[in-house]
């Protein structure tokens, strides 16, 4: 009976086409799923790096902490390398939703470390410069058969992910500011205030021309700024009460460090 069907051939055309589609879709979903998992790892490790970095305000030598953060970030970068590996030859935007959360968190961590070390905003180029990976050439050249088996793999953070990471950074800066005040550090809060204000002005310059997710984070950013400005205000107000005889001490011990950077005045 089965042999009788005159349409025994045509269906196989459709069916074999759909077998190809099945293959394509499953491959894509599997890749997506792998990327989600790597991204979760990136998120977690980045968050832990941020926690680590907050310890700089309470330890005597912040270089140790920074060095430890370097190691951690290096490990995160290796994970991002895995993402880059998965994306090799793909359209990055096709899988963007799978890993955007992780990348934003990485930007947050990397820019936080950068600020602590250099007191400046890390640029997108600097971020991307760290995401260049040298591949294991021996293993790869085999299966690439012919294509340009470049030994270098790069990952490009999109400006939007960069922006979203920086938006989150401001929350960490605010935390750092409050901690600094608590530790009796009179300079860092003003530096943070200035820096945060610049970032805030940057975001308000961009305004609603950016993507929706950015606008959503503006409210939190503004709250962080207000907290930092309040902290600076308090430092200034109470500083106004320093009795005359203590001024000398204060100036010798603090003003010297304060002025060159950016300070209050």
């Amino acid at each position, binding site marked *: 009976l089965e042999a009788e069907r005159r349409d025994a051939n045509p269906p196989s055309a*459709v069916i074999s*086409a759909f077998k190809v589609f099945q293959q394509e879709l499953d491959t894509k979903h599997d890749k997506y799923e792998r990327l989600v998992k790597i991204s979760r790892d990136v998120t977690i490790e980045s968050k832990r790096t941020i926690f680590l970095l907050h310890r700089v305000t309470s330890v005597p030598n912040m270089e140790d902490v920074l060095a430890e953060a370097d190691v951690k970030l290096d490990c995160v970068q290796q994970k991002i390398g895995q993402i880059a590996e998965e994306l090799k030859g793909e359209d990055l*935007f096709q899988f963007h939703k799978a890993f955007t959360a992780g990348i934003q968190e990485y930007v947050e961590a990397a820019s936080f470390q950068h600020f602590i070390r250099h007191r400046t905003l890390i640029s997108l180029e600097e971020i991307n410069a760290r995401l260049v990976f040298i591949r294991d050439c021996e293993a790869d050249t085999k299966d690439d058969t012919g294509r340009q088996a470049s030994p270098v793999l790069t990952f490009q953070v999109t400006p939007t992910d960069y922006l979203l990471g920086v938006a989150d950074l401001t929350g960490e800066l605010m935390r750092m500011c409050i901690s600094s005040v608590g530790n009796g550090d009179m300079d860092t809060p003003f530096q943070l205030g200035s820096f945060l204000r610049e970032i805030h002005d940057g975001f308000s310059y961009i305004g609603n021309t950016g993507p929706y997710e950015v606008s959503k984070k503006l409210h939190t950013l503004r709250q962080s700024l207000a907290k930092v400005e309040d902290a600076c205000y308090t430092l200034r107000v109470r500083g106004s009460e320093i009795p005359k005889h203590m001024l000398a001490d204060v100036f010798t011990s603090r003003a010297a460090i304060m002025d060159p950077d950016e300070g209050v005045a």
Partner: protein
Amino acid sequence: MSVTEMFTYIQGFLSADQDVREDIRKVVQALEQTAREILTVLQSVHHPAGFRDIPSRCRRARELFSAVRTQVGELKTKFPVEQYYRFHEHWKFVLQRLTFLAAFVVYLESDSLVTREEVVKILGVEVDREKGFHLDVEDYLAGVLIMASELSRLAVNSVTAGDYGRPLRISNFINELDSGFRLLNLKNDPLRKRYDGLKYDVKKIEEVVYDLSIRGLAKEPEAGEDK
């Protein structure tokens, strides 16, 4: 680079991005207009008059597809080819509709399922992402599913127009399509929802065939429809 410089740089990127999107939107609007025109041409097959004149409607649609190819050609020039998925949302729906229209024309002409290769030729795009502006497999499948629901309507209207053979042919065709789709593992996404709709199309067509057969109106295509 200072904070201000950095933000100016990013702002520049965002503005450029918006300009690209604006450009794309305009071309896509034109494509939608053409798609509506093709649809109007093809819709007439549901009416008795148009039903009797399918070949000429298909020819007319084929002509209009050349406008599609021109517009798609223009669309390609609006953004870097490797950023296809960055802007995918903009043309996704119109590509699905155009795939539907192409598939419908091909079906009306030859009672067969348009292949991805044929669609891309009709629309002037590529099959492979690597080769340039391509047709996403999910969009191709979505277009095919839109056609399926159009065919269930056609099955109904061909009976009204007095053609009792077509519903049976449509039934065979749709069943084959359904078998194909059963092979796929879909996510809980729009495509899955659309595929759920296919079951209703299959059901509707089966009901038409049933109505015809209990009245002895179904002209059995030679061999037996055992199933």
